[in-house]
C-alpha cells in the first residue's frame, strides 16, 4: 500500500512538473513577442529591447525555463499587468469568492444529483428515468453563460426576486462591514452573527450557485445512476431482498454505499473543473472571484495572471486526482496496489 502511494505521488509530481513545462511553453514561446506585450503597445524599440533583457528573453530557452521554475518555486509568479500586484497575492484575494461559489454549487449538485440518480436507477426505463436522463444530458449541454443570463432575466428582470449580480448590495456593504475571516461573506457574516449581511449575501449567491451546479449536477446524476444500476444487479442485493430487508434500506444503505465511489471521483474532479469554468459565470454575475480575474486577464492580455491561474487550477486538478486515487486504494480492497 505504501509503495502504491509513493509511486502515485511520484507520478503526480512528474505530471505537475509537466504542467509547468506546458505553461512555460504557452506563456513564453507561443506569443510572438512577450517583451512587446510586457511594455505595452506604445513602447519604443529600445524599451522593448530593455524589457527583453529584463525578462531574460535573450537567454537560451533552457536558461529561461530554469529561471521560470525557480521563480515559481519561490512564490514569485510574476506581476499582473493590470492590477500591478504580485499574481500570487491577487489569487489569494480573489480565490475565496470563487471557492464560496464553487463549493455551494457543488453541494447543491450533490443534494439533487445523488437522489435523482438513485431514483432513476431504481425506476430504470420508466418515465422518471427518461426525464432524469434528459435532464442530466441537458444540464451538461447548457452554455452556462447563457443560462446565467436567462436566470437573471427571469428572477431579476421579471420576478424581481433576486439581485442581478455582485456579492452584496452596495448600501449593505457600506453600512455593515464584515470582518474577513474565511473570505466567504456567507460564512463570515454567520460567524459574526451579522444577519443582514448573511441574508443579503445568501440571496446574491443563489443564481450563480444554481448556474454553476448545472454541469456537475448532470455528471453526478449520470454517474450515480450507472453505478447504482451495476450494484443493484449484484448477488448480495438479491440476498438482502430474499431476507426481506426493506427496499428503501437496500437502496439507500446497501446499494448506495457501494455505488458512491465513482460519484466521489466525479465530484472531486468537477470541483477543479468548475473552478476553471467559473470565469464564464463570474463574468455574467459580476462575481469578484478568480474566474473574473482570469477573464479580465484574458481580455487585456495579462499573461502572468493567466498563467498563474492556469498553474493553480492545473495543480489543484492533479492533487485532487491523486487524493481520489489514494482514498480509493485505501477504502476499496479490490484495487490492486502491488
Amino acid at each position, binding site marked *: 500500500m505504501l509503495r502504491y502511494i509513493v509511486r502515485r505521488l511520484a507520478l503526480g509530481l*512528474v*505530471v*505537475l512538473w*509537466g*504542467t509547468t*513545462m*506546458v*505553461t512555460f511553453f*504557452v*506563456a513564453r514561446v*507561443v*506569443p510572438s513577442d512577450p517583451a512587446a506585450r510586457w511594455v505595452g503597445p506604445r513602447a519604443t524599440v529600445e524599451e522593448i529591447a530593455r524589457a527583453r533583457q529584463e525578462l531574460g528573453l535573450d537567454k537560451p530557452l533552457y536558461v529561461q525555463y530554469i529561471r521560470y521554475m525557480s521563480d515559481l518555486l519561490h512564490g514569485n509568479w510574476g506581476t499582473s499587468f493590470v492590477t500591478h500586484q504580485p499574481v500570487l497575492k491577487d489569487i489569494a484575494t480573489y480565490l475565496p469568492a470563487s471557492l464560496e461559489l464553487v463549493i455551494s454549487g457543488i453541494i447543491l449538485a450533490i443534494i439533487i444529483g445523488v437522489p435523482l440518480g438513485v431514483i432513476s436507477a431504481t425506476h430504470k426505463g420508466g418515465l422518471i428515468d*427518461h426525464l432524469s*436522463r*434528459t435532464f442530466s*444530458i*441537458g444540464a*451538461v*449541454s*447548457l*452554455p*452556462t*453563460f*447563457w*443560462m446565467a*443570463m*436567462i436566470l*437573471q*432575466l427571469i428572477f*431579476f*428582470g421579471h420576478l424581481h426576486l433576486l439581485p*442581478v449580480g455582485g456579492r452584496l448590495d452596495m448600501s449593505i456593504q457600506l453600512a455593515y462591514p464584515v470582518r474577513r475571516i474565511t473570505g466567504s461573506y456567507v460564512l463570515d457574516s454567520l460567524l459574526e452573527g451579522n444577519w443582514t449581511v448573511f441574508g443579503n449575501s445568501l440571496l446574491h449567491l443563489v443564481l450563480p450557485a444554481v448556474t454553476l451546479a448545472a454541469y456537475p449536477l448532470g455528471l453526478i446524476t449520470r454517474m450515480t445512476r450507472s453505478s447504482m444500476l*451495476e450494484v443493484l444487479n449484484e448477488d448480495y442485493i438479491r440476498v438482502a431482498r430474499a431476507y426481506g430487508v426493506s427496499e428503501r434500506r437496500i437502496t439507500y444503505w446497501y446499494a448506495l454505499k457501494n455505488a458512491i465511489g465513482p460519484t466521489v471521483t466525479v465530484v472531486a474532479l468537477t470541483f*477543479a*473543473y468548475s473552478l*476553471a*469554468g467559473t*470565469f*464564464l459565470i463570474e*463574468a*455574467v454575475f459580476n462575481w469578484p472571484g478568480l474566474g473574473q480575474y*482570469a*477573464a479580465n*486577464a*484574458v*481580455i487585456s*492580455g495579462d*499573461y502572468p495572471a*493567466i*498563467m498563474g*491561474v*492556469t498553474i493553480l*487550477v*492545473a495543480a489543484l*486538478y*492533479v492533487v485532487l*486526482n491523486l487524493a481520489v486515487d489514494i482514498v480509493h486504494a485505501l477504502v476499496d480492497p479490490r484495487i490492486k496496489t502491488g
Partner: protein
Amino acid sequence: MSVMDISSGQRRARLAALRYDLYLLRKNVLSMAGLVVVVLLVLAAAVAPVLAPYPADAGTQVHMSQQLLPPSWAHLFGTDEMGRDIFSRVLYGARISLGIGVFTIGLALLIGVPLGLVAGYAGGVVDEVIMRVTDVFLSFPPLLLATAVSAMLGPSLVNAMIAIAIAWWPWYTRLIRGQAVSLRERGFVEAARATGVSHLTIVFRHILPNAVAPVIVQASMDFGSVILEAASLSFLGLGAQPPEPEWGLMVSLGRNFFLTDWWYVTFPGLAILITVLGFNLLGDGLREILDPKTREV
C-alpha cells in the same frame, strides 16, 4: 472456398451487425431525437442561403430603422442592435458551428492518432514518453488550457479552434494507443513484419484501419462538447469576431441588451443548447449500444 467468399461473408455479417445497431438506435427515443436534431442542423447549414429571409444580414449589413425589433412574422427571432435579422444569423451560425466541430476534431485527430499509434506500436521508452506527455495535457481542465492557449495566440476563430484541438488530442491518443497495443501482437501484424514490411507501412496500412473505429465513434460524440467550448471562447471574446454570426459571440454581444430585449440572447443561446443536446443525446445512445454491458433490446 475462395478468398472472395470469406470476405463477402464477413461483409454480410458486418452489415447484419450494423443493421442491428441501427435497430437498437431506433428503439432508443432520446437518441433518435438527437439524430433528428443533428440531421436538421446539417440541413439548416446546407440550405441557409435559401432558407434565411435576409441572407445579407449574416454580414455587416446595417438597418438603422429596424434596431432591436421584437420577434414578429417579418423577423421570427427579432433583430439585433444593427437591425439585422437574428433568425437569418442563427441559420448561418449553424454553418460556423458545424465547421468548428469538423475542423477542431479533425485537427485533434491529426495530432492524437499518429502519436497514439506510434506509442502503442513502438512500446518501451517511446510509449512511456508519449503517454506521460498525454497525462500532462489531460491534467488541465480542457476549457482552461484552451482559454490560456487561445489568449496567447490572439483572438480569432481559427486560433480558438487550434487551442481547443491542443486541449483535446490526448483523449484520442489514449484511446488509439490501447487499440494499437492489442493489435501489435496479432498474427497479421507479425506476418507483415516477417515479410519485411516497413514499420511505417505496418502502422498506417495495417494497424490504423483496424484501430480507428472506436476513435471515430468517440470523435463523433465529442462534437457537442467542442461546439460548446468554442461558443464559450467566443463569448469571452477569444473566438469568432464581429460580424461573424457565431452563436456564442451573438450571446456575448446581446449581453448589453438582454434585460430589455430578451430575444437577442435567447435565440442564439437556444441554438447552442439544442445543437449540443442533439449531439450529446445521439452520442449517449451510441455509447449504450456499443457497450456490451448496457446493450439490450
